[in-house]
């Protein structure tokens, strides 16, 4: 039961972070937050007994995508106009 409440907390956290990603003007913060969403999603997948999907989400969503976006931000602008 306590695990279920933890999962609900994680899902709400994902929603809040998603709104933050859309609203913030600092693109670097948005990228980090979206990476964090992926990390939380991978925890949720692990709870749902899908370790394969959790691994993909952690490696691609939290790791590689975040880094690729950071490279792109470094080469363009950090703040949204």
């Amino acid at each position, binding site marked *: 039961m306590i695990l279920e409440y933890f999962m609900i907390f994680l899902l709400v956290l994902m929603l809040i972070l998603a709104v933050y990603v859309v609203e913030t003007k600092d693109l670097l913060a948005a990228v980090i937050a979206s990476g964090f969403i992926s990390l939380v999603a991978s925890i949720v997948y692990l709870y749902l007994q899908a370790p*394969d999907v959790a*691994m993909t989400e952690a*490696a691609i969503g939290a790791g*590689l995508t975040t*880094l690729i976006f950071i*490279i792109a931000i470094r080469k363009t602008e950090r703040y949204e106009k």
Partner: protein
Amino acid sequence: MRKLIAIAFLLILGFFMLKIVSVFPFGEERWGVSRHYVDKGIEENRASNLVTSIVVNYRGFDTLGEVTVLFLAATALAFLLATCKCRKKYERIEASLILKTASDILYPLLILFGAYIFIHGHLTPGGGFQGGTVIASAVMLMLLSRFTFHPNHRALSTIEGLAGIIFVLIGFAGFIWGGSFLANNILPLGHWNRLFSAGVIPLIYIAIGFKVGAELSGLITDMYKVTKEEE
């Protein structure tokens, strides 16, 4: 006005999502084919990881399409970066001692771990895509910490092409000797839960691991190269 339209659109989308979720209850069994995978999957393919058995064998053709999509995306990105003139100069800062030392230690370990994931794809969670991504993140770490680290682009694309060809050739071997494309009866299946088991599944996943690893490493190197020309 635009915001109102957006909100209305989202509400309609949310309504239909809710409808779909209420029609398909979460976790309920609806299709007979999933029951077949769960009951007969290990018997037919001898892969202890049922997900791998489905991804590489039952739905192997979809995986081939997935790999092709990834290839197309990497090619499109390389094309865009080659023609893009919109570059901004910036100073590269030398990586700190901590990052340098840590990446020197982690680089071989990450490569090894990635190889472990895709070689054991039919036994433990994970597989070609996950292992390849771990290898690409190892390359990424070295690119971040070392100026002198230049992956050989020609070698990467050669590995990528060869791995893709091997995947298709295994599929055709199944077509010729097994009866259908990607059929899993051309090699002895062996005993489940052993490293040498599950027929062609580990071979295909090793090929996918090499392909994804080389592809994503090349993609990241491409993104880095845009600035290297400036320096």
